[in-house]
């Protein structure tokens, strides 16, 4: 009987190697430096025990009977990095429309992308090998100024994977475009007002056949209502300092939670952002004044925001290279952001802002064992992940890119 169960479990592993099966093997990571990104700070010469996919214990000289041992001396363990703003799983080749699922012409605010996520995308093992274990996946555009709703995925690449959390934030773009930014504010306000009227008489609305409320379907209105009810935050993609202030007053008027994305001029209003408790998702390396919305872009934006007390989340602007958020964090550190804050901006800050910190974002007992073992400082461009774990399972670091490398190293006689 036991044999049969073992065999079944064995076959389950073959078919779904990443699926948590109760009684999965314990893992003990030994003699390592742990950057916990929690109140415990950095722990040297420490062990970390993983049981049932969770962090079971952290301490010196941990004992275990049957755990698989990983010697990680001279290595550094961090939480798995969380990409705060990407189209991972939605885009394969940017210029090929049929490989993209990150936009729609049909829906606006209510555009949920969770059903489009492709766990077999080549971007997933690739970015995982760069240390990303989960991602906030967010559409790039939809009808009107809304872009739709973000969901969270782990990057285990399993077909059975569904979102960790669905429709957890909504995105909107605000700034220079073909239409006046004043008009964009009006559109946003109008949409809020419509939703408030819709809320008061939604039964009637839903009875009307072929309901058409300008740009908004009922799905869109329901989604915006969640923002107005403060159930989910609104991610505002905007750069100009004055635009950020304008959005802050609008958010206060309607009592909604906002997160800024971009905020290239954020440093100019850092104290306001800190006072209002508004987090900022940014690429610290993007210091190009590439439009009249971003004239004041600068390399130390991340450092200045952090120093003022703003919670920052560091992203890469390239979905294909989402893992390069690490290089961005390193550069932010080079320009004044403390290194521990830089690592937080890749992990716990993302988890906090998107409501994932109960299970993810730091190395604490009871949290999911989403971990990366690095061969050097995780902020350094020459460091590599030597092991990546998602929910306690060691995940392959092989990507298609790596396969190509190995094939041609042999062909060139370099291996």
């Amino acid at each position: 009987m036991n044999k049969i169960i073992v065999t079944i479990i064995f076959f389950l592993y073959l078919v779904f190697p990443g699926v948590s099966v109760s009684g999965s093997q314990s893992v003990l990571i030994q003699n390592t430096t742990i950057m916990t990104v929690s109140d415990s700070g950095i722990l040297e010469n420490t062990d970390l025990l993983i049981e049932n996919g969770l962090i079971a214990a952290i301490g010196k000289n941990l004992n275990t009977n049957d755990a698989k041992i990983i010697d990680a001396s001279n290595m550094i363990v961090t939480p798995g990095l969380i990409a705060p703003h990407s189209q991972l799983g939605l885009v394969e080749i940017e210029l090929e429309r049929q490989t993209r699922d990150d936009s729609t012409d049909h829906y606006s605010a209510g555009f949920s992308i969770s059903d489009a996520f492709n766990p077999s995308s080549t971007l997933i093992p690739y970015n995982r090998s760069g240390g990303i274990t989960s991602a906030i996946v967010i559409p790039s555009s939809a009808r009107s100024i809304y872009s739709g709703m973000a969901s969270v995925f782990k990057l285990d690449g399993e077909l059975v994977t569904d979102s960790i959390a669905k429709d957890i934030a909504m995105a909107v773009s605000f700034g220079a475009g073909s239409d006046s930014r004043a008009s964009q504010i009006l559109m946003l306000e109008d949409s809020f007002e419509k939703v408030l009227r819709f809320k008061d008489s939604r039964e009637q609305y839903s009875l009307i056949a072929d309901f058409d409320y300008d740009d908004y379907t009922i799905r869109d209105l329901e989604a915006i209502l969640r923002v107005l009810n403060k159930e989910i935050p609104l991610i505002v993609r905007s750069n100009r300092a004055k635009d950020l202030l304008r959005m802050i007053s609008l958010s206060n008027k309607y009592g909604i939670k906002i997160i800024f994305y971009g905020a290239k001029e954020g440093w100019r209003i850092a104290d306001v952002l800190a006072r209002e408790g508004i987090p900022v998702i940014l690429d610290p390396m993007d210091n190009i004044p590439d439009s009249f919305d971003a004239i004041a872009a600068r390399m130390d934006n991340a450092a200045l925001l952090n120093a003022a007390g703003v919670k920052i989340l560091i992203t890469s602007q390239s979905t294909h290279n989402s893992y390069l958020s690490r290089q961005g964090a390193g550069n932010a550190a080079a320009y004044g952001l403390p290194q521990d804050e830089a690592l937080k901006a890749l992990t716990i800050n993302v988890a906090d802002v998107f409501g994932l910190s109960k299970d993810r974002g730091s190395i604490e007992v009871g949290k999911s064992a989403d971990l990366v073992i690095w061969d050097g400082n995780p902020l350094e461009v020459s460091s590599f992940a030597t092991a990546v774990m998602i929910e306690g399972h060691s995940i392959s670091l092989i990507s298609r890119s790596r396969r190509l490398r190995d094939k041609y190293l042999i062909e060139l006689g370099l291996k």
Partner: protein
Amino acid sequence: MAMNKKLLTVSVICLLFVFVIEAQENDANVIRSDPLNGAYQSTYNPERSEKILIRNARILTGTGEELVNASILIENNKISAIGKIKKNTKANIIDAKGKWITPGIVDIHSHMGVYPAPSLRASSDGNEATDPVTPHVWAEHSVWTQDPQFTLALKGGITTFHVLPGSANLIGGRGVTLKNIRSVTVQGMKFPKAPYTLKMACGENPKRVYGNREQEPSTRMANVAGYRTAWIDAEYYLKEIERYAKTMEDNLPSDEVDPDQDEDEEKPPKRDLKMETLAGVLKGEILIQNHCYRGEEMAVMLDIAKEFNYKVTAFHHAIEAYKVADLLADQGVCAAMWADWWGFKHEAYDMVWSNAAMVDQAQNGTGCAIIHSDSAVGTQHLNQEAAKSRAAGIRAGLDISRGRAIKWITSNPAKALGISDQVGSLEIGKMADLVIWDGDPFSVFTKAEKVFIDGHIKYDSKKEEAFTRTDFDLGIIDPEDTRL
């Protein structure tokens, strides 16, 4: 009238004569395919620099070496000594203990100035996407000298950069090599005596741009037909010029020409801007810089060069260079590569992190690898791009020293731009273009501390206020303040 005509004929003959003779010379200092009368030439002429001795530094020379506790002496805009140098009381001393020195970084692939910031339609002048073959356009005639991206790049150690037309066209036009100094004229930025270059583009971009207009080329095969057609025209033009020059030469001296025969006298071929550039390539004076991603396309481009007997100097954006690394090394063609960009189009799908390292190591380390970024952000951190590529190479089991990898952003691009006799390495007699870094240039935490161009400190992180901004930066945020 007849007299005037005769005079004109003689002067044209003389010019062509010079043209042909010069083309046969092999003197690197003679710039050919240059316009007549010295037009458009570099007017950059740096002031004589002070004598400066930089001591106690760790130096990556750009020749492959790494010197420890070494010094560099700068005199008259040039490097006059390197290595162990006795303390020179007449020189200004800079103590560089704990610091690193590299040659000034050379960015081989830039669109700064032709796609300046802010990105506006009014100044986006990099692609003459109205015809797939535009060898007559020159990037330097689009450059906006007040692009704030120039100064950002300077802070990252970029002392020389090569501005190219975009990749919409099969043959996009001439590129220009600039020194990263502030000038209100592009002539004032032009790298003295740098050869002209010609931008060509393979693959998806030309066929997409013109294919979308139901125009040729809409396929890769029409791309190739387009290049070959252009070279056939260029061969014909060059032969006509040479034939005419020969005819005139045979008829000289022609004092006894019968005035009645004026009617039969052959007219000089009309100047043709497109053909002048292409003929310059065929004569070996203009260097091909070829945007080309795929391995098989690079091999085809090399066959076109074989058919028409010219040389491809470098492939740019060579995502698949590692697949044809032996071929490139055999033919002495450089590949300029990203550290890790990929996936924005299908021809960029097969990227590997160790591309540059594999190209470098091909055929017993005879490959010519260059790291580029094609980005105004990336160019500010080209040292980090090289660091990533080096680390990937090491991880792939390849032995890549810092001294070797720094060549990817210094001497190798200088070689591919035809300026390696002047910059790209720290050797006696070369221009004093160098960077003092506050640490290992292969670390993300390291920044350029002082950037020298021709012996002058153009950027000093300790004296931000003394740094020359572009006009754009003045009063643009706050009327009384300067951006950055």
